[in-house]
């Protein structure tokens, strides 16, 4: 019932569990996440800090810190390949070529001691047999494509000589160098100023359309999601609580968490006296309740069952799934305060 056209999906994540070792015990930072990414679509992932967005994307890339984190269960099927089973060498062939990723911190994501040119060339050399001249030509084209003027000079520069926006452009150039099918953008604009953020968003949309890429766009800014995504996944504490197309989600959010999140953000176009608040904080990994809804202790609509029954992601309307007991078949009448 859920997967309508799973054959077409470029990426399919099933029941992904990613675990960290903390003081000798394993804790799932991502706990049973399933979703698909269709070709040419942009999937937004939103959620508070610490809800597992980055861990999820690193799991797909196979980049969880070795020895501390690992994919503990589930499947990651990319283009027919089970990524979670691939050895490192094979993964290296895919990373940067078929899936690439850009990160939140443009300031630290580039190696400070190599020139921009060197770091861009590297990705080409990693995946193609290509001469130095050709590579240089290619990267100048790339830099041009991401809107950097005077790329000839920039390739000889070091990262610290570039502004944040420029660096993020370089990161994007690096990510699209091999024309990947999927780009994972982990909060690519969070560290940037609004005006620069607008530039980068514009650029990403442009490139996405031109290259017909799929993008997983991670952010905590709902506005950004609204403007640049086709589908949205709302995560809370390592789980997906709501999943829908942008239009549906913004017109009719269902999960109390989503609703609160939307209400908590001041908006330019309307004036409210008081913002919604979500009391408490995301539980830390080690304090995560094992059964029940993880949002239950912060949820104003929480019921008795919420702490006992783990809600499953269910399609509520077409293209709109939610994991909340309020929407379960037998809707309980009584609301229980915490």
């Amino acid at each position, binding site marked *: 019932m859920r997967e309508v056209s799973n054959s077409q999906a470029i990426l399919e994540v099933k029941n992904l569990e990613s675990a960290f070792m903390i003081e000798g015990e394993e804790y799932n930072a991502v706990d049973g996440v399933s979703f698909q990414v269709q070709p040419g679509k942009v999937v937004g992932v939103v959620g508070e800090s610490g809800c597992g967005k980055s861990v999820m994307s690193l799991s797909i890339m196979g*980049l969880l810190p070795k020895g501390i984190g690992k994919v503990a269960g589930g499947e990651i099927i990319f283009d027919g390949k089970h990524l979670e089973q691939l050895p490192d060498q094979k993964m290296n062939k895919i990373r*940067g070529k078929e899936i690439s990723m850009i*990160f939140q911190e443009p300031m630290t994501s580039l*190696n*400070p*001691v190599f020139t921009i040119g060197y770091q861009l060339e*590297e990705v080409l050399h*990693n995946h193609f047999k290509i001469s130095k001249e050709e590579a240089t030509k290619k990267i100048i084209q790339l830099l041009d494509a991401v809107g950097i003027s005077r790329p000839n000079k920039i390739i000889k520069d070091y990262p610290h000589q570039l502004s944040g926006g420029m660096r993020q452009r370089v990161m994007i150039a690096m*990510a699209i160098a091999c024309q990947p099918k999927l780009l994972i953008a982990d909060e690519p604009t969070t560290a940037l100023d609004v005006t620069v953020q607008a530039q980068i968003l514009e650029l990403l949309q442009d490139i996405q359309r031109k290259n017909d890429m799929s993008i997983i766009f991670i952010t905590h800014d709902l506005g950004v999601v609204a403007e640049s995504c086709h589908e949205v996944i709302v995560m809370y504490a390592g789980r997906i609580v709501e999943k829908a197309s942008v239009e549906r989600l913004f017109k009719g959010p269902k999960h109390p968490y989503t609703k609160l999140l939307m209400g908590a953000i001041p908006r330019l176009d309307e004036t409210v006296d008081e913002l919604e608040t979500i009391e408490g904080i995301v539980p830390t990994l080690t304090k995560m309740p094992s059964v029940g809804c993880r949002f239950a202790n912060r949820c104003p609509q929480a019921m008795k069952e919420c702490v006992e029954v783990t809600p499953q992601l269910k399609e509520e309307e077409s293209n709109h799934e939610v994991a909340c007991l309020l929407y379960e078949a037998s809707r309980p009448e009584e609301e229980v305060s915490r």
Partner: protein
Amino acid sequence: MLKYTIRRILAIVPMLFLISVVVFFLALAMPGDALSGEIDPNNSDPEYIEMMREKLGYNDPIHVQYYRWITDFIQGDFGTSVKYKMPVEDLIAQRLPNTIFLGIISLLFTYLFAFAMGMYAGKKPYTKIDHAIGGFNYLMLAIPIYIAGVFAIYLFSFKLGWFPFSGSVDIALTEGTAEWWLSRLYHVILPALVLGAMGTASYTQFLRNDIIDNSQKDYVRTARAKGTPESRIYNQHILRNSVIPLITFLGFDIVTIVNGALITETIFTYPGLGQLFLTSMQTNDYPTLMTLALMFSFLVLIGNLIADLLYGIVDPRIRVE
């Protein structure tokens, strides 16, 4: 960069002047002079000593003495060693190559071992071998250099007879031949090992920790996301970053060698500047003493300068245009 370098070098001059004043006054304040203690009825007599005192200018006013000393010094005339009765510059010229040789070989050891161990441990932290290297380093850090020297002589020279315990070269060989160089190397190995061991442990630990630190940096994640092979990540991305601070240590190594040479050369009777310093100290050979003290301070200055400049050169982030 050039302008910066020149300015940085010029800034040394007032420092040197002040240091020279301090050195001069310290030497002056030291008890006795080179001729006290030279009493020996067979070889000299009181008149001779008084004559020499006068001749060496020990009876002149202080500023005259300082002026004479510093102007001569600037012109490369460091005075005449009272003990060796020869120009200090010649004396130093004789010993300097030995100390430089010792320094270079010991640095070679330091960096060689530090790199081998540090890189291995950094790549595979928290493994058995890493712990072994760590333990070894802790021990090395705890053994004072002179005890290491004493142990080394006891073990390698006396008990095992592998290495000589003194000298810098086998006399029977002609200078410049291959054997002669080999013999020098053979003589320098043990003191250089001991001197080199001083830095090895801390450098290894530094490199290891820095590699571990760096391997958690964002840019490493970026490199991985590009599909860069693991070996390349360590040998290029991480190492390049970790080596930068290490290279700048080169400057400070000069300081370490100055301090270390004092001890190692004495223990191994290796005729270098460190040993010369202690001898001149014991014999009140002031011209030599002052020259060496000034020279060592100068080396420290140079070392710090090199560290600064190297830092500017190897690290693109602070490279000054």
